[in-house]
């Protein structure tokens, strides 16, 4: 396991997450997990099984109570917050159940925000890349629309384009189709699958939908905070 963890794009080793309190709540325990480059992995499980918690710890949005998280073989879970923020900016892209687009900005601007944060490109260059990403999502006609002028499926595709803005090696998606009809959901999954298989990114998606989970390369099933099977 250790060898694969170091070779993997993203991995967790002996990881546990316990919420402190008078009665500590164990969200995750004994997690050993690794995903290779170009792999499309589904994390499945019942509601409350800890799938989202696992995704957040992998995405450095939460800190494990014990064990570690490796990104490109490097222990990232104990880095100072600024370093973790930098890793999120450079290597990770998030898609959530709710689109979480900034409501005041156009689709194009929403995709450009992570690029601007990263910097190092000209304004016109960023604009061109954002338009290209949105075009790939089939949204060329909606560049200057604000989120409230888009449908749910369109918003989620803008969110995916935003996750791809800085060309991350790893995409983490938390129930990305939770609010979509099945046609839109299929389309989003097709896009995620292409990101893994055609572009060589690691895509980890949390879902409770077994039909969609079957579209991935591998399923990791969680029960009560532990991996089974």
């Amino acid at each position, binding site marked *: 396991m250790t060898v694969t963890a170091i070779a993997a794009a993203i991995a967790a080793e002996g990881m546990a997450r316990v919420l402190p309190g008078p009665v500590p709540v164990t969200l995750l325990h004994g997690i050993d997990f690794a995903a290779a480059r170009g792999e499309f992995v589904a994390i499945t499980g019942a509601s409350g099984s800890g799938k989202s918690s696992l995704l957040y710890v992998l*995405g450095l949005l939460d800190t494990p109570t014990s064990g570690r998280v490796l990104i490109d073989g490097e222990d990232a879970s104990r880095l100072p*917050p600024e370093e973790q923020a930098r890793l999120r900016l450079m290597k990770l892209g998030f898609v959530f159940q709710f689109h979480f687009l900034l409501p005041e900005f156009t689709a194009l601007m929403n995709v450009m*925000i992570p690029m601007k944060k990263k910097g190092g490109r000209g304004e016109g260059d960023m604009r061109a890349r954002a338009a290209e990403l949105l075009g790939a999502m089939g949204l060329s006609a909606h560049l200057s629309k604000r989120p409230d002028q888009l449908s749910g499926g369109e918003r989620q595709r803008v969110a995916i384009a935003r996750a791809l803005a800085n060309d991350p090696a790893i995409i983490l998606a*938390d129930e990305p189709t*939770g609010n979509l009809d099945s046609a839109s959901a299929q389309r989003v999954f097709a896009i995620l699958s292409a990101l893994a298989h055609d572009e060589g990114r690691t895509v980890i998606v949390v879902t409770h939908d077994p039909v969609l989970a079957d579209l991935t390369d591998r399923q990791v099933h969680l029960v009560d905070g532990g991996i089974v099977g």
Partner: protein
Amino acid sequence: MSLVLSIAVSHLRFRRRQTLVSVLGAALGVGFFIGIAAMMQGFQRDFVARVIDVQPHIVIRDEFRHPPPQPVEMVFPGGAVQLVGVKPKDEVRGIRNARAVIDSLRRLPGLHVAPVLSGQVLLRFGAKDVATSVTGIEPEQERLVTNLEKDMVEGSLDALRTSPNAIILGQGVAEKAGVRLNDTVSAVSPEGVALKMTVVGIFASGITLVDNFDSYALLKKVQILQNRPNVVNRIRIKLDDIADASTMARRIEARFGYRAESWEEASRNVLGIFIIQNAIMYSTVGAILIVASFGIFNIISTVVFEKTRDIAILKSMGFTEADIRRIFVLEGLAIGMIGTLVGWLIGYGLVELMASIDIKMEGFVKAQGFILYRTPKHYLISGGVAVVTATFAAWLPARRAARLRPVEILRGGG
């Protein structure tokens, strides 16, 4: 426009009305400060200028600040001496050896000296009695020391010499007695001496207290009236450089022993009122700005509360705590700066509005309308305070926003 700034601006535009109210709060604080400060400082500076104009810079009086030391105290300077029942000598009041004092003062450079004797006199004209303080002067020396000549509205200073038993009245005194130029009044002193005097001049300094109580006559006449021949009870001094007044007064007092008052000391109670006035002004305006900063605190807190999801998503994208804090501090800064600019306009308008109001008032000084002091300093002070309080008011919610943990907000997918 930088990314952080454009996000900050988008938040403020989203809450347009609340932003407007916060900006207005800061603007009113700034505007009122400029208006009130221009009015108060205008009045104060005008008053000081007039006081300096009318009064001599230093007055030496025939009094002592401390009782004279007794011989036994001089022999035992550190001893535990208690003297009981000391009776002061019954002396003729006045500055002793005034001629020699004046001569030695005249030898100092940058200094003009005039001896006077002043005392209470009752003016009687027809059925009216008016109490006035008559100052006996030597016109030739007086005009070097005070601006009496400039303040004459009728008659002239030289007429004191040319007509016998001449008197110059303050405008208020003349009005109270119903006296006009060339009228003859009878003056009665507490010593019981009575003189028929002719009004040869009326002056108006603009300082109510002076105009309502002071009169001038020749030094010789006042000495007769007060039955104090050859006595001088005050020496008035004018300096070329007014800034020296306090030090010079102390030096004169140390040398001659007589109480020497600089104009600052003489007007101390009024200058003290100014300090209280300023304290009231600063606390009033400070209160407005504090209320305004509560408004700013409120709007930024609301935005932080409403935008928790945005904050979470920005953090997941790789924004650091410092980035998030900067967004919200910038919002406060923007409100403070726009409020300052609007407040400058309000303040400018307020000052010009007051300048256009015409009112007659008679308090410490006579004036027509407000006397306004316009200075960029007021703009800089008010702007600086507004921007600093706005930034600080935003900083508290901004810190809270920066510390938000994204998981707690994003969780919800199960």
